[in-house]
């Protein structure tokens, strides 16, 4: 049965919708503010044990022997596992690129600091941690490789010896006549950039409770997991179980931003649970484990970028060379972050041809994981710096060069050089609005006055695309086949007329249960109090992927409205039977089934549903008697990637322009943000308060990325940022107040016209801050090309520039 999902609120069977598109309070919040939400560490099961994991203190070492005898004898210890158990009961992790995985517990050698070596299940965490201290591991240290350039050299230590190389992937993707574009260019600019490792750092670390049924050969996992189905499939593959024997119960979690990770820790916990005679084992990752061995690290990049232009400022070609240091294995699927830029490679611009020379290298560091934005934020940042470098050389205003190169609003849908299709947009309108909001000419005046006073003040203007609603085809170039990205919802009405919406993902913070409630309330014309959103496990939920890739708001809208449509069709059929009319003469309107054009012939929805539940004998023979319906939504029209990775991948392309003014203190290198303006277009805003929250939070993470956050390893592969004293997350002091405006260009491809907006400002904020810093530094001839632009880095640049001037 095909379903017509409403394209706008006018298509709802409701004469006065009240909820969709309004800033509504979240149904999630009363539980959260009272501390009642069931985060994974709150869960206590009968007989539950607690795990602790012994981790490698060395970046690269052969394991001679492991003696667990003392740990096993400690009172309260129930089970101990090592690499021998991993070899016996599990397979190496699936990875991207493929075949770059290891076992969840080190077997013959360790490849990074923090790699699990052994684990203990005990009566409580304190005893478990006592026990891992009693495990004696004999390490034979090996030379570590932490620099990806050195890792590519012949004779480098090999992270995984069997591979015979540290190069995980090396390929050049060419889209159009790039050599021709650079040959025919009036001007070519080239610059190198370094984006240092950083990571997601949700306030809640990962946690899992594993329960192994050794008789039924099945596994139940309760976990703070983002995409439960996908996660369960991976665990089944690693643990050698049929996929239908792994049940995942996702718990609400305290943020993820892609960095919830936890697969390796889950596999270790599951192995422990095989040894406890059915007793569940809980493992809660502590913060040290998260920072050194969890899903905490992403994007460790060295760029060399060239831009070809005509003298008038039109960009005619882009050439990006990227070396990404993936860490020891591909298990975190961090390589996806090198593939996703194909979805927005040329940004909001009409750059006709481009080349991507991609190299991914293994080193003795923690494997990379996803992080908000999944790869484009550094790419956008370097592209925007190149636009500024060109603008400065050609003496064009940064806003003007962007305007000149924007994809015009009548060109959508627009296929970019790297193959993705942008759905819609009006980039000039967004730019105009933010320039007005910032009072751009006056801002430039302020800057001129400040400069005259000798102050180091800069203004940045930057724009980026946020690809929304991912499809696995976007990641084909790094060997990811994917497991589908469906989103399902089941809407049902009980005999009291109350409505349940059953979904397959747990709360994560983006207000998705509220969105489902808004949609159902408006569709059936009921109040929030009549609706309950219920989470189901992987054994009972409709097909679902959950949050990720800026998709869930749109995908859930499709799923819920599709289910509402299907349910309405059923109710119409039943009501028509009861009215003894043709179904074509009956419709749902304002929560009632009404006979079209026949006054007084109507029945409340609840009564129809009640009839279905109580008197199935009265129903027409071809009607399923359950007053419920399920719809599974998938992004339409996605295409297979061609040999150059080109595909229609992400369904929507939200766009933003940010304008920032900031001041660099030349004596300290500290940056103070003086003004921050943002205008974005993510199509229809289903709950504007939620969208604003995503923008605000994403700006904060972007500020962290641009100025503060950096994972540091020393030359031996020891991590130096293993606490929040060293890894600096923005506090209330660092996050600026913002002024915001919106432009709404509804997507023609999505239910209600919304575009993916969850990743949000992270795509633009690091770019605009670095742009503004470079605008501030330009008069002294300095240029910052490293992220984060920490005080020390900026101070050093300024000092060098001054020394240069003094020496001239």
């Amino acid at each position, binding site marked *: 049965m095909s379903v017509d999902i409403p394209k706008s609120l006018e298509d709802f069977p409701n004469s006065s919708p009240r909820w969709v598109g309004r800033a509504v*309070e*979240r149904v*999630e*919040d*009363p*539980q*959260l*503010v*009272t*501390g*009642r*939400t069931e*985060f994974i*560490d*709150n869960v*206590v099961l009968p007989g539950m044990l607690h795990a602790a994991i012994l981790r490698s203190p060395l970046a690269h070492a052969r394991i001679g022997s492991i003696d667990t005898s003392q740990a096993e004898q400690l*009172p309260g210890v129930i089970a101990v596992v090592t690499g021998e158990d991993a070899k016996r009961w599990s397979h190496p992790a699936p990875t991207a690129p493929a075949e770059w995985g290891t076992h969840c517990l080190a077997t013959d050698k360790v490849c990074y600091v923090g790699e699990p070596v052994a684990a203990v299940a005990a009566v*409580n*965490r*304190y005893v478990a941690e006592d026990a891992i201290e009693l495990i004696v591991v004999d390490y034979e240290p090996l030379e570590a490789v932490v620099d990806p350039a050195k890792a590519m050299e012949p004779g480098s230590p090999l992270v995984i010896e069997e591979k015979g190389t540290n190069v995980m992937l090396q390929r050049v993707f060419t889209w159009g006549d790039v050599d021709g574009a650079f040959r025919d260019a009036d001007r070519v600019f080239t610059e190198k950039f370094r984006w240092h490792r950083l990571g997601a*750092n*949700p*306030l*809640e*670390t990962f946690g899992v409770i594993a329960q192994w049924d050794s008789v039924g050969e099945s596994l139940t996992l309760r976990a703070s997991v983002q995409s439960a189905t996908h996660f369960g499939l991976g665990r089944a593959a690693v643990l050698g179980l049929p996929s239908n024997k792994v049940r995942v119960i996702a718990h609400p*979690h*305290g*943020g993820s*931003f892609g960095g919830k990770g936890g697969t390796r820790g889950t596999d270790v916990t599951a192995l422990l649970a095989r040894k406890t005679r059915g007793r569940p084992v809980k493992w*809660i990752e*502590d*913060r*040290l484990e998260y920072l050194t061995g969890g899903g905490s690290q992403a994007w460790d990049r060295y760029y060399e970028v060239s831009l070809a232009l005509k003298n008038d400022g039109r960009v005619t070609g882009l050439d990006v060379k990227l070396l990404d240091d993936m860490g020891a294995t591909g298990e975190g699927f961090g390589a996806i972050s090198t593939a996703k830029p194909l979805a927005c490679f040329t940004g909001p611009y009409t750059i006709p041809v481009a080349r991507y020379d991609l190299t991914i290298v293994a080193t003795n560091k923690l494997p990379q994981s996803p992080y908000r934005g999944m790869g484009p934020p550094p790419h956008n940042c370097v592209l925007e710096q190149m636009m500024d470098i060109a603008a400065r050389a050609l003496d064009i205003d940064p806003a003007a060069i962007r305007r000149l190169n924007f994809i015009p609003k009548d060109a959508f849908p627009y296929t970019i050089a790297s193959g993705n299709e942008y759905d819609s947009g009006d980039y000039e309108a967004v730019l105009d609005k933010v320039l007005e909001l910032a009072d751009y000419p006056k801002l430039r005046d302020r800057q001129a006055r400040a400069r005259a006073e000798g102050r180091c003040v800069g203004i940045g203007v930057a724009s980026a695309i946020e690809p929304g609603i991912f499809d696995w085809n976007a990641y084909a170039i790094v060997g990811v086949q994917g497991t589908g990205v469906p989103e399902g919802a089941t809407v049902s009405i009980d005999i009291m007329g109350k409505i349940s919406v059953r979904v397959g993902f747990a*709360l*994560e*913070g*983006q*207000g998705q249960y509220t969105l489902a409630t808004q949609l159902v309330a408006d569709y059936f014309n009921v109040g929030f109090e009549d609706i309950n959103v219920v989470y189901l496990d992987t054994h009972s939920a409709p097909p679902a992927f959950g949050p990720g890739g800026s998709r869930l708001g749109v995908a859930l809208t499709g799923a819920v409205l599709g289910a509402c449509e299907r349910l309405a069709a059923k109710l119409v059929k039943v009501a028509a039977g009861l009215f003894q009319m043709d179904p074509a003469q009956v419709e749902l309107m304002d929560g009632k089934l009404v006979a079209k054009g026949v006054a007084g012939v109507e029945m409340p929805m609840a009564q129809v549903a009640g009839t279905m539940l109580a008197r199935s004998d009265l129903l027409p023979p071809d009607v399923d008697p359950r007053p419920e319906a399920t719809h599974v939504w998938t992004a339409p029209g996605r295409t297979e990637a061609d040999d150059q990775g080109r595909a229609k991948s992400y369904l929507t392309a939200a766009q933003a322009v940010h304008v920032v003014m900031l001041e660099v203190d030349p004596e300290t290198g500290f940056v103070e943000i003086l003004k921050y303006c943002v205008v974005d277009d993510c199509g229809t805003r289903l709950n504007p*308060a*939620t969208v*604003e*929250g995503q923008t*605000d*939070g*994403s*700006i*904060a*993470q972007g500020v962290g990325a641009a100025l503060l956050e950096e994972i540091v390893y020393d030359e031996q592969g020891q991590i130096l940022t293993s*606490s*929040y*004293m060293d890894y600096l*997350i923005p*506090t*209330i*002091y660092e*996050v600026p*107040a*913002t002024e915001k405006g919106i432009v709404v260009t509804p997507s023609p491809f999505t239910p209600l016209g919304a575009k993916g907006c969850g990743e949000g400002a992270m795509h633009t904020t690091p770019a605009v801050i670095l742009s503004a810093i470079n605008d501030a530094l330009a008069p002294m001839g300095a240029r910052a090309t490293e992220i984060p632009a920490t005080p020390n880095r900026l101070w050093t640049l300024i000092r060098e520039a001054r020394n240069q001037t003094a020496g001239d």
Partner: protein
Amino acid sequence: MSTERQVSVTVNGVNYEARVEPRTTLVDFLRGELALTGTHVGCEHGVCGACTVLLEGRAVRSCLMLAVQADGTNLTTVEGLEEDGNLHPIQQAFVEEHGLQCGFCTPGFLMTVCELLENNPDPSEEEVRDALGGQICRCTGYRSILRSVNLAAARLRGAHTAGSAEHS
């Protein structure tokens, strides 16, 4: 193994007696022994503030204290904020102003704001920042939290004004 000690605390007005190992942190005691799981563990090294509770009215990090150090004291956790099934005005303000997203850090923020507004009913933005400078939120970017605090402060001042004889 260490010898257990007797600990007696009053949490949210209820007296608890328990025997704990001296090394048990206060947050593990609250969550594990007393099943008050509204207080969350974020970093376990005193930086993020998710585990903040009130000890004799002062905001403390329960991950940096031992349960035995709290012996004989009065504690308030997030579970102690609501009254008769109604949200505390600070909780209500966070809901209305979208002062949370994932909600994991929120109990720590709420307790810190409690202390702030108890001592300073009309804080300036700078004073709010100073009070919250040691709390990390990874979701909101803090702007909605500032709005929440302002709303809560205004409501609490209003309630105080309405309820006091001098102002009626």
